[in-house]
């Protein structure tokens, strides 16, 4: 380890953290646009969690959800700030550990600590606290992949075949473990993150083309050999015709589109949505929270959310573009791919243009682990922005 391995710079006290965040901000090394966009999205998300869980008979229910969401959000912002405040190279040092820990978390799901929610063994529950290891795996995979593809060997300026093979190996175990939970959505996110990072790593084009080809062949195999579960197949078929079985498989898709469409241009207003208050869309405070926005805030609100999300991704990619170090750039690319894939597939499924997968909408959906994981990812990007800005930003 030479010049680029930094000393351990973890902050010792809260005061130090606050001081450091403040100092970094003052030195205008914070992407305030990114921060603002993320905070506005989170605020809108909190509102949507409130309205989507609101029941006139029992205001305490919604209050409980909002309270928990705000606690999650507070923790998440804190974690994000913490990550943002340290040198991005510190987490890099722990990347293998983080990766192994996340694998352990995934393994725990299959122990008695694991819990089945909505047919998927995706949760662990300890002392009343629940967590979704798959969310942390996304961050861990970004770090591990960036490490393997973003630190070219001596004499190389791009990942070699060996690097790619190692990276593939690092992808394989979490992806398989998530897939058997089963959580098709999250494993697709992992695959997307990997492909996005690989394509921006400068790895040989044959690898990228080859992997895309393999993916295509895999999809075709699944199709031909009937490897999908019935419900998974149904999610794809209802994508093409949501009205085929409106009370059964197509129910979610159908009700989501009704909720979105009935919002109209201006929306019904917060707490006024009839689809929302009637709970016609299942999981409307988590996976289907966009339908609440579209119904109650209308086209205006929907566009605002899509625009803010695009702005966040844009800023992350802008940070990536400014990165001196391949590792740092790849981390940003990973985060951008993650947000893009998960955000747009989530919105797309509520609009009937993507199959229904159990993915939360970043920054908006209720859910502690997911919120913390995304904020940590944003923290990573902010940290990179603060320290690795290349010459044109200096």
């Amino acid at each position, binding site marked *: 380890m030479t010049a680029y391995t930094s000393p351990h710079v973890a902050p010792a006290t809260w005061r130090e953290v606050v001081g450091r965040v403040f100092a970094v901000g003052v030195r205008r090394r914070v992407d305030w646009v990114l921060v603002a966009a993320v905070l506005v999205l989170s605020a809108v998300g909190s509102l949507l969690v409130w309205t989507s869980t609101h029941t006139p008979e029992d205001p305490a229910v919604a209050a409980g959800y909002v309270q928990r969401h705000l606690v999650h959000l507070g923790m998440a912002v804190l974690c994000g700030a913490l990550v943002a405040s340290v040198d991005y190279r510190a987490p890099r040092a722990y990347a293998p550990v983080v990766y192994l820990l996340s694998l352990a978390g995934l393994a725990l799901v299959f122990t008695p600590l694991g819990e089945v929610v909505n047919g998927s063994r995706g949760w662990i529950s300890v002392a009343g606290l629940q967590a979704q290891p798959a969310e942390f795996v996304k961050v861990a995979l970004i770090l591990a992949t960036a490490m393997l593809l973003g630190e070219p060997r001596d004499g190389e300026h791009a990942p070699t075949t060996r690097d790619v093979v190692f990276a593939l190996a690092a992808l394989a175990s979490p992806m398989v473990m998530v897939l058997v939970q089963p959580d098709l959505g999250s494993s697709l996110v992992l695959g997307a993150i990997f492909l996005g990072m690989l394509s921006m790593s*400068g790895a040989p084009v044959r690898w990228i083309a080859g992997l895309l080809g393999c993916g295509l062949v895999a999809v075709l195999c699944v199709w031909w050999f009937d490897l999908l579960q019935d419900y998974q197949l149904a999610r794809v078929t209802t994508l093409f015709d949501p009205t085929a079985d409106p009370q059964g498989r197509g129910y979610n898709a159908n009700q989501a589109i009704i909720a979105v*469409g009935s919002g*109209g*241009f201006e929306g019904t207003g917060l707490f006024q949505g009839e689809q929302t208050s009637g709970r016609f869309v299942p999981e409307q405070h988590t996976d289907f929270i966009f339908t609440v926005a579209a119904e109650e805030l209308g086209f205006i609100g929907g566009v605002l959310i899509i*625009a803010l999300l695009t702005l966040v991704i*844009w800023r992350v990619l802008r940070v990536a573009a400014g990165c001196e170090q391949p590792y740092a750039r790849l981390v940003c690319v990973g985060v951008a791919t993650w947000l893009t894939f998960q955000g747009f597939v989530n919105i*797309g499924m509520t*609009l009937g243009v993507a199959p229904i997968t159990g993915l939360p909408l970043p920054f908006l959906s209720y859910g502690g682990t997911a919120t913390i994981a995304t904020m940590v990812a944003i923290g990573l990007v902010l940290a990179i922005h603060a320290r690795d800005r290349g010459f044109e930003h200096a």
Partner: protein
Amino acid sequence: MRRIIDPRSEGGARRPRKVGLLAAQILVVALAATLTARMWYLQVPMAEHYQSLAAANHIQELVVPATRGQILDAQGRPLVRNRTELTVSADYHQLERSPDGGEEVLRNVADLLDVPFEELQRRTRLCGPDVSRPCWQGSPYQPITLVEDVDARLALQIMERREDFPGITAQQRPVRGYPMEDRAAQLLGYLQPVTQEELEEREDLRTQFTGVDYVGRDGLEAVYDDELRGTSGVRKYEVDSRGNVTGVFSETPPEPGDHLVTSIDERVQRVTEDALAKGLESAGGPADSAAAVVLDVNTGHVVSMASLPSYDPSVWEGGIDQETYDELLSEDAGDPLTSRAIQGQYPPASTFKVTSLAAGAENGVPLDKTFSCPSSISVGGRSFQNYEGSGHGSLSLHKAIVVSCNTVFYQMAYDMWKEDGGLSPDEEPEDAMTTMAHDFGFGEPTGIDLPHEGSGRVPDREWKREYWEDTREQACERAERGYPEEDDPERAEYLEQVAEEQCADGYRWRAGDAVNFSIGQGDLVVTPLQLARAYAAIANGGTLHEPRIGKALVAADGTGVTEIESGEPDKLPVSDRTLDYLRSALADVPRKGTARGAFGGFPLDEVPVAGKTGTATSTGKKESGWFASYAPADDPQFAVVVLISQGGTGGAVAAPVVREIYDGIYGFSGPEDADDAESADGDPDDQRGSEPALPGGEPPTELPTVRSDGSIVAPGEPD
């Protein structure tokens, strides 16, 4: 791990990666734009479509049936009313939500009411393609009926122990009540659950029905179904995705159906039914059915109408079970669903002589001459006899009616037949008798406001030709083959002869046809209602009314009254002189003619009765007795016709029933104690044995009044 940074190589790689990142940024914006476009499509051009879908989602419509109107008699007394019964019902959603699917609750109900648990469980399933009865045909937002007609004490227990019976309620439900039991059953009709075919046929029903509704299936309930039903209300509930009702969105209250005020008099109906039942019973033997009609001669309104055998229409309540239904249709029951008064078709026999006499009188037969009444005459090689073969020498047509001489009318018909050209008729034969039969309203339905009315049959030349064309082949085959299966060789030969005749020229209007027709025999058949209407026309001076039972429809709160119109009446083409002649002859029948025995002791001076007996014969059966009448003969008010099928002669079986009906209407004591009354001192007041069914002897002209609170006041009484 060691690395050497080579700025050149790094810088060289950076350019393409920058391009890649730019491409990624463009891709992200393009994706966002795609989603925005899709959202625009859903939320702007398609917004209305999805808003209507959302509304359909969260609004559940429940049809609230209207209270059916009552059927009232002319005095406002209920003939069919709504009685309430207690039913125990369950809330579908509440059962669904309970952890065991409502099993425990249903077991409690089953224990309390002593019904099988499985039955209750089956009743709470919603009917569907795979779920057959018993199941719930209605909406899950309606209370599901578990048990009907529950004892009030048990129902109370359910309401008191709410905690043991979550989702279970006891409710009062209106059901049809028949205070007259089996009286006027065919006339009133009944209700049955609506069928799919009926829903498809009647557009207006489709929007109104919830799947558990009833429609009138016969009688007045069917004819006035729309008016009695009223308009269903709609209650729109707001519901959430689990079907929980979260509020009432809007409510259109049901409009209760109108009450149907009929011209039936409940007491006269009772008198009629009871007299008829007694008459049928005392006729004994093969007597199988009977009918009676009482008309208001001045309006054509039906005052009472009875048909036996009858049944209690309450068997239809709540859906008839198969056993009872089979019983109703069994041979033993004697077809109680058919109203003999409007559907039964019988030869009118001698009651038809009024028509024959009118036909003769209007075609040149002198009313002031005398005619010979031999015991038989020979026409076309066949002998036609008086009833029981007795002769009366020479008599007037008046006397011929009073003693019911057949041969006078045979001769009259034969003469008229010959005038028309006999077997080779003129270009346009007069056919005075068959024409007059049509003019008296026979051969076509009267147009009464009841379904399935029979038309009777006037066998004129036209009918004979049609009949011959239809049956010629069989007749010719019989003419060829004979009747080898017939035991009596004489009869077999006769039948073969008839068949030969029928095969060769059965279309001909023969002398025998004309002769038989004149005394209401042969192929001529009429319904009791047709005959009553004809006699009413004779009584009222020749007006042939379209009979009506419904007088008016009155709104349940009394605000609206719609009178029921009847069609334009016809006029008998008979001169006043002939009608006067007929009336005076008919008035002598109960005094000194064929009905003398039946009217023994009846105060004819006070209420003179005019009428004619009839005894219809058909081979292989006992004769059926008629009495067609009207009263009072000097100022007619009622026409009364009674038929006892296979009961015996009209004078012996039918006339006593008619007399009893008049007794009841006017409140005279019956024939049993008539002797005592006569022996007292002849004061007519003494002969009033009981309360008259129709005080004053006149049906009311006013309608009963319905007060705004729904109570009903008899006509003439203060509101």
